[in-house]
């Protein structure tokens, strides 16, 4: 078998988990072991679909709106039509688990320095040519090693590891919506805060149903141009913008990440349009992170994003009136710090995923008492 690297991701995660005193968890989840292709994947009826004529179904979870014939799957690769009933094949089937600092998501305004028990299944509803997690997201569940990890066990493992948060991340939580929902319910029941890292490419109804269960969500806004979404992502811009507005309307804490890909989405004009839209539609207090691209997956012919491009975006964002503009994947850059928009004092000093200092007092600047929005307790 040659999916060694994908195995390594999982084993690495499992190893990390073991280091974090998860032998019980691993003993429990090892019941499944590898998901060899010959196995019949466990399935639960999916939540969002409608039945069509002649045994076909239409998925109503994401804007791809896949029409799926019997024995076929949607674009995500994790939902399958079996005799006219649509199933999710990944509920409780985690292929990657890890305890990360919340800064890694990144959610800079959510419990700084706390651990997020992070999990993912296989599958994704888009195909970014620059996907950083393609060895999970672009594979089908039978193609990666995975563990049976029901929501209650996942949350119990999070607590044992001192994680105050869970994070559905790495792959695309939209495609394991039912698992995300059930983990969030289990987490909330014991005071653990559920968070999600998503592309936001989801239909409004399922988004609205899950949002009240979440403490925070980070959305990757991959570009402000529909053409980029169609060519580089195989998605659409408009539904993502709609999701961002719905998230703000519901009031769940939101942060946005924009991966700047050299020559494709990093022009000053596009960054300006994006920041102006965020300012106008979402407000100045939504953090926007501009992060550095590194060549991977199908975009290996471009260089890493020049720091100058990131710094230009940083300035454009602040000039557009955004209060919290950050830079990512440039450890040690001042763009990692949280600054008070009133007195300009540094409130949280970061290097990479590490917190060097946190001067916030009850969510406010200690110098000018400006309230800083976020989830601080």
């Amino acid at each position, binding site marked *: *078998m040659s999916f060694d690297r994908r195995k390594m991701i999982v084993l690495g995660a499992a190893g990390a988990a073991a280091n974090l005193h998860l032998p019980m968890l691993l003993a429990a989840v090892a019941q499944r072991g590898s998901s060899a292709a010959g196995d019949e994947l466990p399935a639960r009826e999916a939540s969002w679909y409608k039945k069509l004529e002649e045994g076909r179904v239409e998925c109503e979870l994401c804007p791809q709106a896949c029409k799926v014939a019997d024995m076929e799957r949607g674009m995500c*690769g994790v939902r399958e039509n079996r005799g006219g009933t649509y199933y999710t094949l990944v509920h409780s089937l985690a292929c990657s688990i890890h305890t990360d600092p919340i800064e890694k998501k990144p959610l800079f305004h959510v419990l700084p320095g706390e651990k997020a028990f992070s999990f993912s299944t296989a599958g994704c509803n888009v195909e970014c040519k620059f996907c950083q997690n393609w060895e999970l997201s672009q594979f089908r569940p039978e193609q990666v090693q995975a563990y049976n990890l029901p929501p209650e066990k996942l949350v119990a493992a999070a607590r044992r590891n001192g994680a105050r948060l869970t994070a559905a991340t790495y792959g695309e939580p939209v495609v394991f919506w039912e698992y995300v929902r059930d983990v969030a319910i289990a987490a909330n029941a014991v005071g653990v805060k559920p968070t999600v890292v998503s592309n936001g490419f989801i239909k409004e109804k399922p988004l609205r149903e899950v949002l009240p269960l979440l403490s925070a969500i980070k959305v990757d806004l991959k570009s402000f141009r529909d053409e980029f979404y169609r060519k580089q992502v195989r998605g659409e811009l408009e539904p993502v913008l709609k999701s961002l507005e719905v998230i703000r309307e519901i009031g769940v804490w939101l942060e946005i990440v924009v991966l700047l890909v050299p020559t494709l989405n990093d022009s000053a004009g596009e960054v300006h349009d994006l920041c102006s839209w965020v300012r106008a539609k979402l407000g100045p207090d939504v953090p926007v992170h501009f992060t550095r691209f590194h060549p991977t997956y199908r975009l290996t012919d471009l260089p890493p994003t020049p720091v100058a491009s990131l710094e230009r975006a940083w300035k454009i964002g602040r000039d557009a009136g955004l209060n919290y503009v950050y830079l990512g994947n440039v450890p040690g850059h001042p763009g990692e710090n949280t600054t008070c928009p009133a007195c300009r004092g540094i409130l949280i000093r970061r290097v990479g995923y590490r917190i060097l200092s946190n001067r916030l007092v009850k969510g406010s600047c200690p110098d000018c008492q400006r309230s800083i929005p976020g989830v601080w307790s």
Partner: protein
Amino acid sequence: MTKLTRRELALAFGAGALAGTAQASTRRPPVHPGVVGVAEARAELGKALGQETARLAMAGALAASVGAASGVEAAAVLFSPRDVVGIKVNCLAGKNLSPRVELVEALVNLIAETGVDRRNIVVFERSDRELQRAGFEIRESGPPYRCIGTNNDFEREPSTSGAIGSCFARMVSSTCSALVSFGVVKDHDLSGVSAGMKNWYGVIHNPNKYHDNGCDPYIADVARHPYIRNKLRLTVLDGVIAQCHGGPAYRQGGIFKLGMVAASTDPVAADLWAWREIESERAMRGMPNLEAAGRPVRYLASAAKAGLGIDDPERLSVVTV
């Protein structure tokens, strides 16, 4: 039947020692653009063809596809004794609508009789489970041939071909030096037709990504990847029982007894023939054609444009035996 000399036998056994390693043929066999060899083969649903019937049909279609005097002679034109031959079967629809074991074995025998070591003939599908459901017996090392699922044994990095970016099964990228697509004649709810070309979706890790727009241009893009294009020798279509509606899964109401086996060195022409037969059956039943049914067959034009074969019905040459 072609008889092998002792020297040829020795060569064959020498090749056998290299089982599992692709030895590229030193020659590229000729392609016969637009030519589809068709032989009659009738059976009831769920009933096997007799061994001799299967051999006659397979040999007849194969011979007609390349203008050879016999099936073995035709196979000898297409395959070298040094080849590792991979026969990709499409077993998605289970036993009722997958390539018949007896037809596949007839092809295996014809190829073996040209001197290709049986250990170097691999019948494969995505998984062991799908093969077993279609009635194949898993044979890791043969005899009389190998029969295995690729079971997620993919290249580690994706490679791009047109609009697709996929990790290919190592079975096609490195194990095999010659390939056969062995499909069935059936309707597909998105691409219109699933015959020989769409069968190659089974060698990429992410077929689910490429079903929009009637699978176009993706079917052509998979087929024109060098792993496929440079190794494809033959497309065989089992049309003993075909399906004109309700595919790609088996659906009883769409089944019809076409009673034919087709072979072609031109993958586009083979699918064009399948399309024609499906449309013919639909017309006989008073059903709308595939375009009117909302699934126009677009991928053949893209495949022809990419130089993979002939999609012009006027240039389709069906040689019936």
